[in-house]
């Protein structure tokens, strides 16, 4: 397509991810969010792609890219892994942080779950520390409405200092508002002024000590965030900073001195490395709490009586296991008996074709070894595999997706956690086992 490496952004490669733009003018938008907030649904809705949306964490471990366009602008959407935080506690968080920070996207959309917005704001606030071109997309608004949660989006937007839009990702129309806002943010028509989380005095003093030095040395990274991260260092970030800014950045004696002084002062205030980590996280959590106070109102308890009753039935001692076994048995039965008919039809058709092929080979006068290899070997095995494997898969996976969409799978994981832990596994793995056993049947 005639794009050179530099025109598609060598920076993106620095975060071990190659962004493939279709045109040079394409803007890169990162799609971030907690796990299970419908991020993949938003991604699919925007790009028309059909990435599998799943209900277990860490599904999008590698990045997916897709394209979409508005009247004004064409975009490359990058679906980054779902995470609760950007502090790089796991592989997913590291990928997410690296992309938002070092991938230098033109904008970041943070997808949030309207039914537990407060918890989602933790990630939003962390993203705001890194980037100012952020749009908050409050998804699952229909769910929130059903649970009688009222959200004052404009008040939240004011408190956060960035645009906040609401979506119901399953209804594609509701994504228009998000795209309009993105147009405005990317073109500069709207200039977000993200609210900064204010840390306890001692931490702020330490930040103030090194921030001017950091700002003097780089303008491509948010200096306040970088200063905070230098105070609370983690090796994976140091590695990325060296890659992005060059080894000399952290080695500069000026910065090293200031950093050491700031750390000594923190220690004098009784804040060691571990205490600092705790302090940072709890400041973020209480900041999120403050933002939601008065702007998110639940008329009923969020986790309402009906949900509780259903959950009780699905997970109680008396009914939890029987219901689970029944449901799984039903799915197995539907799959096995249901697959028989299409299996027979398929094998009938495919093996009839084999006879034709044999006739054809003989008519050509092909040597017997060639016929044996291609028809009795390759074709026959293929026909067998397809007629035996395809129908059960085509039945099992949609059924399984149905259970997944209903939210039953996390309950299975919950029910089975103890038995599985005995075998040094965890409840989540029961799902994998289910899939394997159906394939092996």
């Amino acid at each position, binding site marked *: 397509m005639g794009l050179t490496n530099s025109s598609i952004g060598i920076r993106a490669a620095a975060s071990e991810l190659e962004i493939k733009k279709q045109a040079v003018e394409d803007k890169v938008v990162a799609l971030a969010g907690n796990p299970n907030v419908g991020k993949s649904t938003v991604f699919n809705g925007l790009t028309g792609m059909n990435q599998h949306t799943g209900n277990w964490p860490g599904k999008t471990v590698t990045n997916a890219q897709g394209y979409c366009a508005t009247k004004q602008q064409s975009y490359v959407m990058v679906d980054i892994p779902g995470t*609760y*935080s950007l*502090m790089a*506690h796991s592989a997913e968080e590291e990928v997410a942080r690296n992309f938002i920070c070092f991938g230098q996207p033109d904008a970041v959309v943070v997808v949030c779950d309207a*039914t*537990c917005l*407060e*918890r989602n704001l*933790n990630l939003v606030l962390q993203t705001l520390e890194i980037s100012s071109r952020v749009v908050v997309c409050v998804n699952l608004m229909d769910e929130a409405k059903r649970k009688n949660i009222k959200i004052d989006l404009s008040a939240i937007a004011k408190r956060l200092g960035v645009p906040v839009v609401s979506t119901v990702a399953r209804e594609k129309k509701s994504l228009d508002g998000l795209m309009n806002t993105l147009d405005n943010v990317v073109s500069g028509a709207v200039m977000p002024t993200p609210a900064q989380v204010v840390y306890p005095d001692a931490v702020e003093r330490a930040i103030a000590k090194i921030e001017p030095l950091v700002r003097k040395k780089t303008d491509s990274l948010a200096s306040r965030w970088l200063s905070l991260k230098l105070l609370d260092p983690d090796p994976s970030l140091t590695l990325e900073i060296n890659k992005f800014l060059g080894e000399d950045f952290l080695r500069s004696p000026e910065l090293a001195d200031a950093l050491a002084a700031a750390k000594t002062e923190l220690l004098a205030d009784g804040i060691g490395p571990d205490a600092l*980590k*705790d302090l940072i*996280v*709890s400041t973020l*959590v*209480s900041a*999120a709490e403050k933002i939601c106070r008065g702007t998110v109102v*639940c008329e009923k308890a*969020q*986790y309402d009586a009906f949900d*509780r009753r259903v*959950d*009780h039935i699905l*997970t*109680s*001692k008396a009914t*939890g*296991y029987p219901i689970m076994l029944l449901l799984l048995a039903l799915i197995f039965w539907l799959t096995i008996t249901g697959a028989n008919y299409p299996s027979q039809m398929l094998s009938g058709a495919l093996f009839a074709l084999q006879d034709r092929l044999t006739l054809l080979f003989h008519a050509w006068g092909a040597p017997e070894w060639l016929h044996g290899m291609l028809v009795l070997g390759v074709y026959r095995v293929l026909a067998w595999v397809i007629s035996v494997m395809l129908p059960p898969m085509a039945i099992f996976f949609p059924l399984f997706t149905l259970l997944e969409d209903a939210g039953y799978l996390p309950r299975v994981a*919950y*029910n089975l*956690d*103890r*038995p599985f*832990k005995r075998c040094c596994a965890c409840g989540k793995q029961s799902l994998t086992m289910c899939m394997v056993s159906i394939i092996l049947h």
Partner: protein
Amino acid sequence: MSNLLCLNDVVPGQRAIVKTLRSTGSMRRRLLDIGLIENTEVECVGRSPSGDPKAFLIRGAVIAIRSEDCQDIMIKVG
């Protein structure tokens, strides 16, 4: 001393206020990330058929925590 209770002492239907976390390492960070900081209210909403893990309502989300991890979450009841 009432502050010697841990999250395992909370039965379904009961509420408690988180006081301190004794957990360390990645579990500590996970618990902080889900919002278990000082003075956070949690409610036990159920236990799984085998009794472990239990489910807790934390800041609007229901989260399952194993009893071995509950041991390190110190709480105050009421």
